Every structure is written in structure tokens, then in C-alpha cells.
């Protein structure tokens, strides 16, 4: 199966050429920008991007409704709708998503996150702490699955949710699925377990492949996929790419401000992955192509693959070899980086994937079976 590449949707208030990331902490993202966002969707379709991530949070418009609006203006692109439990009960959530699916023919998946800031969760009346939020999200998704299974009225006597004879008239509508693909975001053990029990894909922040390998094993063994949220800076040579990366953090007048904002954001957060990424940034180059230099100004998702098209393509193949199958990417400038990726990187990745497949089919049977668990000897 080919790697799947998604991109982060341009926020309202961001320009196509913007290089800042801390903008999602400011008021500039308050409003949707239908013209520019629709154009970004169309460009993503051209670039071979599968889905666009619509963030969730108090600084932004509601992602379900934004996806409905943009879905009416596009044909092919999918949306990765981020949402958190604790904002809306599961029955209402499924009703909204099923309605969305009927309107845009199922062109969306879900990125379920537990919320990264206890302070922000309280805006919505949610006073649970980190691990309990995951326990609640577990129940939340279990109820959602019951509705999507469609096996009659839903009864769920849970700890956080109690549902009696829940029914919905609008089913999930899609040409190929009975429920949306579920990305579960988060770097903690709780997030990983949730991905295994309720999700389709465990979505986490990037790290060097050799360090990721053992952490993702249990997820792959459970038959679920692994995805990475990260960034890309690709230029025609490695030197140019590195220069662009360094300019990103040094060339900004607002650099200092971004750093203070990001530190403050990190301090208020109880997200394990945001902390891990912040700590990883002690080492600027995790591999010759994996750069953390933007993390402390641009946030955890800014762990970045930097290099020439060939180097960047090879980097993604490294991840493929350890079993990662999906990516949600972003870059700077926001539109141009996606276009470079679509034009220069993606064709190289596809060529390498074909090569790998030929090797597997032609010579190396052992390799093709590598991921099948072998249980010949009973424990």
C-alpha cells in the first residue's frame, strides 16, 4: 500500500506565503477565509494530497462546519476533522458527522485528540485531567462505534456517558466505509492504547525512525496503522533547504515573541507529546535530515524533514520501512512547500515504493512477511 500524505489546512488569517506557525495562538485565526482556504483545497487536490487537517480549538472556527462549507466548494479533497471529547456528547457528534458525510459523500476522517490544555477544556465545562480525558475519550468513541455499527438502538451505561435507546435517522454515508477513519492523536501511552482499542491510525509527532520503531510496534501488531504529524522543508539542494530552515527561525523579527508564546503554550499544556517534542529540541538534528530547530518557536508538529527532493523522499521511505503509513504534513511557505512536495517529492516517493514492491514480489518473500506475527511455538 502506498504511503498516504495529508496536509494541514491553511487557517483563516494565514497567508499562503506565511512562515509563522505560532499564529494559531493569536486572534488572527478567528475567522474562516473561504476564498483562500478553497484555493488551498484545490491546490492540495492538484498536489496529490489526500486530506486536509482542520484544527480544533477555542482560537478557531468549528472544524465540522468548516469542513461542511469547504466540502460544498470542492470535489475530491478529504478533510481530517480534528475533535475532542468533552465538547459535545457522542450522539450529537455522530449525528453531525453523519450529516456531514451525507453532504460531502463521506470525504472526511477524524483526528481525535484529548485536548492539550486543561485551561481550554474548562471553557467547555470539562474539568478532567489528562489520563481521565483519555478514559472518557475511550467511552466516547465506543458509543460512536455502536451508532456506526448500526445494530439497533444504542444502550451504553458508562462512567462518563449514559445513553438509553439511542437512535439516529441519518447513517454514515460513504462509497467505501461504514464509519470514518479514526486518527487518534497523542504521544502518551494512554493515546497509544486508545488508538489500539478504538482507532484506525495512531497519529503522533515525529522522531528518528530507529527511535520510533519500538514505540509503534504494539500498534502495528494490533493491526492498526501509524501516522506522523510533521513538517517538510524541501529545496533543490540540501544546502538551500538547510538555509531555508535556519532562516525560518532566525530571519523573523517576531522570533522572540514566537518563542515566548510557544514556551507559555507548552507550560499550560498537559500534553505528553508537546513536552516530548520540546525536550527533543535539545538536539537540533535527530538524523542528518530530521531537524528540531523550529520546535521551540513553531510547536511540536514542527519537527521537520529537511533536504533535497531525493533526500526528503528517502526519509519518508525510511519511515515506511518501519511501518509508518500516513503523514499529516505542513511547511513554509504554506502553499509553496505543499506544491514543491507534490511536484518534486511525491513522484520520487512513488517511484521508490514501486521499486520496493518489485523487490518484494520478485525476490524477497521473507521481507514481505516480516510484519506477520509468527506463533509456531506456543508460549
Amino acid at each position: 500500500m502506498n504511503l498516504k500524505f495529508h496536509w494541514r489546512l491553511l487557517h483563516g488569517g494565514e497567508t499562503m506565503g506565511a512562515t509563522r506557525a505560532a499564529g494559531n495562538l493569536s486572534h488572527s485565526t478567528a475567522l474562516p477565509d473561504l476564498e483562500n482556504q478553497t484555493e488551498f483545497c484545490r491546490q492540495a487536490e492538484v498536489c496529490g494530497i489526500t486530506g486536509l487537517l482542520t484544527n480544533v480549538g477555542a482560537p478557531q472556527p468549528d472544524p465540522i462546519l468548516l469542513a461542511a462549507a469547504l466540502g460544498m466548494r470542492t470535489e475530491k479533497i478529504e478533510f481530517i476533522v480534528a475533535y475532542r471529547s468533552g465538547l459535545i456528547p457522542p450522539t450529537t457528534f455522530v449525528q453531525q458527522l453523519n450529516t456531514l458525510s451525507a453532504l460531502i459523500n463521506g470525504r472526511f476522517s477524524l483526528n481525535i485528540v484529548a485536548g492539550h490544555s486543561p485551561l481550554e477544556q474548562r471553557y467547555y465545562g470539562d474539568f478532567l485531567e489528562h489520563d481521565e480525558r483519555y478514559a472518557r475519550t475511550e467511552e466516547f468513541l465506543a458509543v460512536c462505534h455502536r451508532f456506526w455499527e448500526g445494530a439497533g438502538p444504542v444502550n451504553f451505561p458508562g462512567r462518563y456517558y449514559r445513553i438509553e435507546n439511542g437512535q439516529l435517522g441519518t447513517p454514515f454515508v460513504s462509497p467505501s466505509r461504514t464509519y470514518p477513519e479514526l486518527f487518534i492523536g497523542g504521544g502518551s501511552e494512554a493515546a497509544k492504547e486508545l488508538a489500539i482499542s478504538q482507532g484506525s491510525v495512531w497519529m503522533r509527532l515525529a522522531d528518528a525512525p530507529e527511535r520510533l520503531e519500538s514505540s509503534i510496534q504494539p500498534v502495528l501488531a494490533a493491526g492498526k496503522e501509524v501516522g506522523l504529524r510533521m513538517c517538510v522543508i524541501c529545496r533543490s539542494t540540501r544546502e538551500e533547504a538547510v538555509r531555508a530552515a535556519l532562516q525560518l527561525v532566525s530571519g523573523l523579527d517576531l522570533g522572540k515573541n514566537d518563542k515566548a508564546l510557544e514556551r507559555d503554550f507548552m507550560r499550560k499544556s498537559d500534553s505528553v507529546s508537546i513536552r516530548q517534542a520540546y525536550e527533543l529540541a535539545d538536539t537540533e538534528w535527530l538524523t542528518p535530515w530530521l531537524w528540531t530547530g523550529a520546535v521551540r518557536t513553531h510547536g511540536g508538529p514542527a519537527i521537520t524533514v529537511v533536504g533535497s527532493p531525493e533526500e526528503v523522499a528517502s526519509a519518508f521511505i525510511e519511515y515506511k520501512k518501519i511501518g509508518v503509513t500516513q503523514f499529516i504534513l505542513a511547511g513554509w511557505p504554506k502553499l509553496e512547500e505543499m506544491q514543491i512536495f507534490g511536484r518534486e517529492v511525491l513522484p520520487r516517493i512513488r517511484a521508490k515504493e514501486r521499486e520496493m514492491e518489485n523487490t518484494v514480489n520478485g525476490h524477497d518473500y521473507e521481507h514481505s512477511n516480516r510484519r506477520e506475527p509468527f506463533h509456531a511455538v506456543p508460549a
Partner: protein
Amino acid sequence: MPDSPTSPLRFHWSMSSAGARWRGAEPRAAQNGIPNFADYLEFCREAEACGIDSLLTAYGFHRPDPIVMASALGMMTKRIKFMVAVRSGLISPAAFVQQVNSVSALTNGRICINVVGGHTPKEQRGYGDFLEHDERYARTDEFLTICRAFWEGRSPVTYQGTYFQIEGGALNTPFVSEDRTGPEIFVGGASKVAKDLAVRHADCLWTLPRRPEELFEQFGSVIESGTEVGILVSMIARPTREEAVASTREMLEAIGTQAKKTHRDFSMRSDSVAFTSTLAMAEETQSDWLTPWLWTGAVPYLGAPAVALVGSYDEVAEAILEFKDAGITQFLFMGWPDLEEMHRFASEVRPRVEARERRNLRKARPIVLEPSMGGTR
């Protein structure tokens, strides 16, 4: 009694039956919840052409979600507003405000909200809501208090209530509109708690029709308090009274009698005062005519909102103005079928209402207000 209501009458239409002519006659669970977008869009465009103010997108487990529909339909329309139904207990108030504000930003303020208490406890439990009627209204009171704090710019919002606790709530996306900082708020119901809720929070209370003088008796205090009162009413207007009455007979024949059972079953499960009292009234009264133009004959078949204004164009226009005399200033219409009736309303009834208002041709028939019925606020 308002001597000379200064605000012009406003006319809305229900989109509940878009694409399904006799939808109200089927049990709710049997209705198809997959929205036919083309039907909805046609409905919106016809309503724009007919000068309708807003379209009610109702809430129910058997229906698509109204706010998601409003967001999508808003992309394909220019002027029509969406009156999105909401029940408290189905969503956190901050998340709701964020959704409403998002639609306002996407449609340039073309959203208002219709807050209802929910009408069957059984359905509410499917959403995880186990409160009974009066408690649902108490919770809705807290819900709207929090929502209005956001809309009135009182962020960060902190609220310690019985049903909701909010701490430091702040949302970036504002309500976007040329002339408002929050959506117009409609509250539905007929019980005392519904009236109190409307007086505290709403721009307008929606209720079901009675004879105008009865409505004034029941809702005069709400009007006196400065909250408008509107009615949810069906319309069967034809060139002559005979044709209109003949249409009511055709309508009943078309529906058949199976539907009657549907609504008796529904009524037994419902704890809505507005719905159950209207059904009871329709079943108990000797005649199907509350006034010469207010007909309840379809209520047992199509549900409580099927109380209908029936008559010639002139009679229906006159009836609307009789309600106006009783203080009713907004109307939420339904038709059987909707689009044909909406066209007759736009081309025949509304011009007659406006002409009468302009020329003041009507003889004044004031309803005398007893001193004890004065406003309470």
C-alpha cells in the same frame, strides 16, 4: 395590548418537510434521515425568491443535524437565514456558541436559533439526557445565560451553575453580522417555564395557535415584557374559501387514517405542553374550526403544528392581521405541500396583508385588556 405595534410582521417558513410532501404522517423512526441536498437547496432558493425571512431547520434524532445543514446550505444561498433548532443537554454551551459563530462567519450572520426543551423524554435519553420537562427548561436557562455572556462580549466567561460549570471561557471566532453581536434567539413552548425562559432570554417566543384572544390571554404578559410572540401555523390559502375547504378534505384523504395512530402514540410519549395540549384540543373539540379560518382537522394526522389558517387569500390575510391585533408579530408557516403554499403566500396573501396595513382599511377591533393581565416585568 400593544396599541400600534411598530415592528413590521415577519414571516418565516419551516424547512422540516423539504423533499417529503407528507412527512409528518409517518412515524419518526421510519423517516429517511439522509438529506436530499438538491431538495433542500431548491427549498432555500424558492424561499429567497418568496421573500421569506428565515427557514426553520428542526432538530430530531430522525433528522440530519440542523447546524451542519445550515453551514452547507449557506454556501449555496445569498440572503435566506437559517433558524437552527437547538436543545440544551445535547452540546456544551461554549461549543454551541463556537458552532453558531462559525456559521455566522461563513454566511455573514445568516443564522438565528430556536431553542426548544425537547419534546419526548425517551428521545432525550438517546442523547444521554435524563432530565424531566421542568428541569430541562431550568438547564436551558443556564445554557442561554452562558451563551449570551459570550455573545454580549463578557469573556472570559466563568459560570457555576447546577447544570453547567465553565471557567475562563474565551472563543476567538465572534458572531459575524452587520447589525448584531449574537444571533436572534427564539424559544419554543407554551408552559409557564417556557414563557419565563422566553422573557428572560429570547427575542421571540414561538407557540402554537389558539384563537387570537386566547393567545393574548395566555401570552400578553410575555408581549408586555418586550419579548415578541410568534406562532407556528400551517396555511391553506386559495382564491376562494370553497376551494380552501375542499383542499382540506383532499389533504385528509391523501394522508389516510394510519397517520392518526402515529400522533396519538407520539403524544403519549411526549411531555411537551405545547404539543400535547394542542393534540388534546384537536381531539376533544366538537368542531374542527376554532374560528371560521382556524382549522384543527389535520392535527390528529400531521401533528400539533398542523393547526391551519384556511380560507380565501383575503380571509387568510385578514386572519394574520387579527393575530397581529392580539400582539402576534412573527409567523412560522408550513404548507401542504410547502413550496406551492409559499408561492401563494408570497404572491397573494402577503401583498394583501401589506396593503391592508398600509391603507389601514381594517376596522379596529381592539381586545380589551383586563387590569390583572398587565405585564409582570
